């Protein structure tokens, strides 16, 4: 039980990210515990959050969650139910109002100062979302890398043609099917997320840290009717792909795009 409790503590620490917003929330909760005279609001904005917070750390809750959901990775979502933002904003503004009404002279200025301090505390205690490492300048209205669009436009089938199979480097697989689902992938995101630990032979060859074994890759892709291969820009290849009959269609931002006529021939023979 202690181990499960400690797991919840770690999840909580990861959730609050070592920043001070959580302190602001606890202060607001503490303030409302005494300042909020309406018993219904106290029940909803003080007792309910406290009880959910306690339930979050209670090992049985975590056990029940894992049992019901079949996984524990998303346990942090219980914390979404605690209206931290509402409690901070309500408690802070209520405090500012109370400060403002306390003195006849200068009370309003004290109230304003409280609000400014609250805003400063939020800004200093939090993290600016637009500075996140996951944010970048949008290159197009799709909000996916332009190079993916350019590569897909080279290989995508024409209207009315059969869908095609392709292999992409791991850094691009997330985006291909957000642009065009007529391009099918031999492996997708499920293979490239390390935490899921799936294994897929084509991905294993493509994911080699330095060199891609072209012979092995083509054996696998031709078995699976894959006619287009996009290689990474930053890895060596064991041999020139053109020695195996591949045709270089284009190179976009360093990514070479190959068409495999041998695979196309195999498909023709198999399916007519």
């Amino acid at each position, binding site marked *: 039980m202690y181990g499960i409790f400690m797991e919840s503590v770690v999840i909580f620490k990861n*959730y*609050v990210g070592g920043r001070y*917003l*959580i302190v602001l929330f606890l202060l607001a909760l503490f303030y409302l515990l005494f300042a909020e005279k309406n018993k*219904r609001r106290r*029940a*909803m904005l003080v007792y*309910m959050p406290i*009880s959910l917070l306690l*339930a979050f750390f209670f090992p049985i809750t975590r056990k029940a969650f894992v049992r*019901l*959901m079949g996984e524990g990775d998303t346990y942090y*979502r*219980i*914390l*979404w*139910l605690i*209206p931290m*933002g*509402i409690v*901070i*904003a*309500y408690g802070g*503004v*209520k405090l500012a*109002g109370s400060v403002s009404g306390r003195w006849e002279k200068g009370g309003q200025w004290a109230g*304003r100062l409280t*609000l400014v301090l*609250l*805003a400063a505390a*939020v*800004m200093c*205690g*939090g*993290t*600016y*979302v637009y500075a*996140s490492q*996951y*944010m*970048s*300048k*949008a*290159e197009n*209205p*799709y*909000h*996916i890398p332009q190079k993916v669009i350019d590569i897909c436009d080279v290989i995508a089938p024409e209207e009315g043609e059969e*869908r095609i199979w392709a292999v992409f480097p791991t850094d691009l*697989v*997330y*985006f291909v*099917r*957000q642009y065009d*689902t007529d391009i*099918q*992938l031999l492996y*997708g*995101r499920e293979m490239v*997320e390390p935490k899921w630990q799936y294994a897929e032979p084509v991905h294993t060859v493509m994911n080699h840290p330095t060199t891609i074994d072209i012979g092995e890759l083509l054996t696998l892709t031709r078995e699976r009717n894959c006619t287009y291969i996009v290689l990474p820009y930053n890895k060596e290849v064991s041999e020139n792909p053109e020695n195996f009959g591949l045709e270089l269609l284009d190179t976009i931002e360093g990514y070479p795009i190959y068409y495999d006529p041998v695979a196309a021939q195999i498909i023709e023979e198999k399916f007519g």
Partner: protein
Amino acid sequence: MIIVKGIGLIFWLLIVPSCIGLIPVRWIPEEKRNAGVVFTGGYLMMLSLCWLVTVPCILLVKYYSFRTMAVWFTALSLLAAALGVGITVWTCRQGKWVSLRPEPDFSGMALEVKIEWILFFLLIFWQLYKAFTLASFDGDDAEFVAQSLVTQQSETMYLIKPYTGGTTSLDIRHSLAVMPVWVAFIGRRTGIHTTILAHSILPFVLIPLTYTVYYEIGGHLFKKKREYLPAFMAVMALLQIFGNVSIFTNETFFLTRTWQGKAVAANFVIPATIWLLLWIFDREEEAETQAGLWALLCLANMTAGVCTSMGTFLNVILVAAVAFWMMVAERKFSILVKAGFACAPNVIYMFLYLFLHV
């Protein structure tokens, strides 16, 4: 062409939900009726309706299930919108004028309060500007956004693996959370690629939708001191912008994956549930009619399931926790019973989920 698409967006994302949202207004206490309730209520109803149409189509229609869904959902949405307008006209003809207070009311407002409102709107503008000009990388888009695009382009639902394109047996785990299908539907009706829709257009609806809910919550908490409301809203907006303390917070989800079902559950459905629970329980005297609010709570519970299967479970915990403390505060056991009935959609959803899994 762009103008036609723009009109389509306004029609399906603003006009239709707003007209649908007129349906419960008559059954909501008069002092609580405003445009925000109509808009949020409309979305709760429209998304619930989407679930009611989509799930049978997924389970019963073998080929081109999305095509069937799109036809039925179009018809029923338009019917519901017409019903909303009809009920409003009928109510007005009966002499019971359904007045919607314009909010916020700037007339007679102190300069300081006006400045706070301006500050709040600037913060919203900043969020919308960033939503359009910045791209946010999230691995789940390979599932969520691709699922919408697969639906739009293949006209089937949950029969093709979004990651690769391989065919699969019905994906039960995700198929009950039909938010990607709703996105595909809007894409179909407006002729817009669903990835553009999700990443560049939906934030312009979903971000204001969330703030409308916070507006209702703040309006209720500060109903006797309305001048504090803009400060509350500005702090809420700041909290969203600076709430990225980890990748797990609802604030991070709100501004980095606005369009995903789980983000909508965390930032629209859960706050909307808190708002409705506040309205239902935190009142000074018995209101003449609460039926509309209970109905909206049921719909919020349904919408939770539209966004994500886990949302169904989370909303039950939330409603149960609030109802428990209200029961203690009011010493009325009936509160728990009523709250239990409001969670009926969640129970049905969970049984369906288990039934399909076995």
